[in-house]
């Protein structure tokens, strides 16, 4: 199900951003890093009170106040996993249109409730368990690492943070940067899925090709393949799928990465994506070589 945010772009490069959990260790650190990167961090939100600003960024007691005073329309939540649902509820009711939640470990029941909430409000939610999203050189919401970010022509969508850092870093070393990078997160229940991002990348004139960093388990890769066929995917898609050696019943870190009796297997993903026209790789370097052979930076 694609969610229309009212904007034809997935992420506006000059969007005004507020930080939830701004006075916590992570919130404070990443607010500063994001601002240093160029993100318009206009407000912090913190329950605890006491601090009027963090490094010059005004801190408010609620999202509603922050939105009213600064015009923020996007938010990044640096709150613990059990507080993510509450943070989303608050951001949605304050009128925030794009919410990024980075915390790992959000209970599934909370994620289901958050999903219902953002869908009925028409809000885009990235997460849970995401390193964030970025338009390299312009803005980043979250903590995608600078060594992997570079302006370029690849639209990236990834379930895994670290694996996408590695893939993009190697591509950057070969001169290929990104037009948009969306970390959808490794959880099973999430705000934004691969298939939701695809239409934006296909419409976006700054994107020439798409790199997908997938993972065993779940059905997101299969849904993406169906969406590629439905939309008539006109741009080359390169996909890497991790977990080919994963055995049934063993969870390897990510919530989505657990295989049950055939659903979400490597074979099912590879077949679906290839029949929709994507090239599927099992080794990082093979994908990097294929991209650099087919495209000049």
């Amino acid at each position, binding site marked *: 199900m694609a969610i229309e945010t009212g904007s034809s772009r997935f992420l506006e490069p000059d969007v005004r951003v507020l930080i939830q959990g701004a006075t916590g260790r992570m919130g404070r650190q990443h607010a500063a890093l994001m601002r240093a990167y160029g993100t318009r961090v206009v407000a912090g939100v913190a329950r605890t009170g006491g601090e009027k600003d963090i490094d010059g960024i005004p801190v408010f007691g609620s999202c509603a106040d922050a939105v009213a005073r600064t015009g923020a329309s996007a938010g990044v939540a640096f709150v613990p996993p059990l507080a993510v649902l509450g943070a989303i509820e608050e951001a949605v009711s304050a009128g925030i249109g794009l919410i990024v939640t980075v915390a790992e470990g959000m209970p599934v029941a909370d994620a289901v409730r958050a*999903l219902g909430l953002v869908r009925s409000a028409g809000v885009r939610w990235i997460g849970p368990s995401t390193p964030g999203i970025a338009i390299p050189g312009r803005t980043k919401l979250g903590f995608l690492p600078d060594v992997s970010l570079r302006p370029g022509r690849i639209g990236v969508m990834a379930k895994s943070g670290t694996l996408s850092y590695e893939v993009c870093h190697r591509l950057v070393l070969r001169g290929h940067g990104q037009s948009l990078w969306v970390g959808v997160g490794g959880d099973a229940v999430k705000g934004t899925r691969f298939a939701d991002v695809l239409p934006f990348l296909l419409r976006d004139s700054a994107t020439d090709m798409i790199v997908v960093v997938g993972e065993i388990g779940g059905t997101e890769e299969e849904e993406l393949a169906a969406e590629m066929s439905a939309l008539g995917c006109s741009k080359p898609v390169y996909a890497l799928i991790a977990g080919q050696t994963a055995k049934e019943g063993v969870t390897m870190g990510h919530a989505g990465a657990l295989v049950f009796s055939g659903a979400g297997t490597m074979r099912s993903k590879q077949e679906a994506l290839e029949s929709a026209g994507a090239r599927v790789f099992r080794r990082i370097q093979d994908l990097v070589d294929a991209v650099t052979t087919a495209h000049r930076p």
Partner: protein
Amino acid sequence: MPLMLLEHDAKAVLAQCGVSVPKACLISSYEEVARAPIPLPAVVKAQVPVGGRGKAGGIVRATAPSAAMLATRELLGKTIKGHIVREIRIEELAAGSECYLSLTLDPRTGLVRVLASDHGGIDVEEHARSGILARTAEFSQAGVEDAIRAIGAKTGGSFEPALQSLAGPVSRAFFTFEAILLEINPLFVRPDGTAVAGDAKLVIDENAVVRNPQLAALLRERAAAYPEASLKLEHGFDFVVLDPCGEIALVTTGAGLSMQLVDEIAARGFSAYNFCDIRTGQFRGDPARLITVLSRIASGSRVRSVLMNFFAGVTHLGELSRLLLTALERAPQLSMPITVRLIGNGLDEALEVLRAAPTRLAVEQDLERAVSLALEPLARSKA
């Protein structure tokens, strides 16, 4: 994260919520069988968290105690679909017509899919595709209960009263234990409309354990049966032994990249001892987590090389390197070569720290080269 409970625990949960399950005992050593009250005729079942155990030889019928003991001896320690059998459930053979009932959370829609069929058993996928009854419910206990009742109303014979009486207990189990999937197959339905769960697959949400006393109690009581989940609960990171005979051990951060490294090593013809997502971002100056991981690696009897990979998005590599040296000093001595791949913030400082280290570490910045380097000692002996 999803955690599949062993059948024995899944049935305990169901029984607690009011679903009938066969009389049974749990055995973890051959010596215990002789003393155990074996219900006859019995089904001897390997407790491993996978589907299709029957087809994989993990389920044996026995009509005499001697046969049950023999089956137990053969199953204990056996590997089924990659899992070593450490426990056996011996339960009374149930009778009735084989039906099917399952509840699945659909991650895409956030709704619960209820499936039921009066043709269950091991070939349910093939047999019941046409005759399966499905209903989608909103994510609530009442919604799921209503859906099961509605399906029940569409069936006939003894399956209908069976579903009506299961609707409450099954939906209660699903929500009380924050399940993602609950499947009862076969569900033995007797002519009088009562039912007993022949097998049970219950996948719960590990993320909910910290706030759910029922789940926490279950994992605490059965910590030994769920070593990885217990480690995660206690220490906050993932470590899974993948191949006890694996010769290369991993100290890595990030689930996706760690999983991919296991794949890349397999693609080069080797087998990783473990999967690990150590989460460097949570160290906060404490080497404890590194020490725990190094100790676990030291107990891998065939490990002859260690590959560490730290792609530091945020973590400062200088600080990480100092913690690593402290951990190497305090952990059991590792005699095998260690390859460290570092990239990110504070790389120069990290290189300086590691160069001055008393422990000899091979440091690499390129992951492909680091993997090759780490596999070298293994490749030499293979050739």
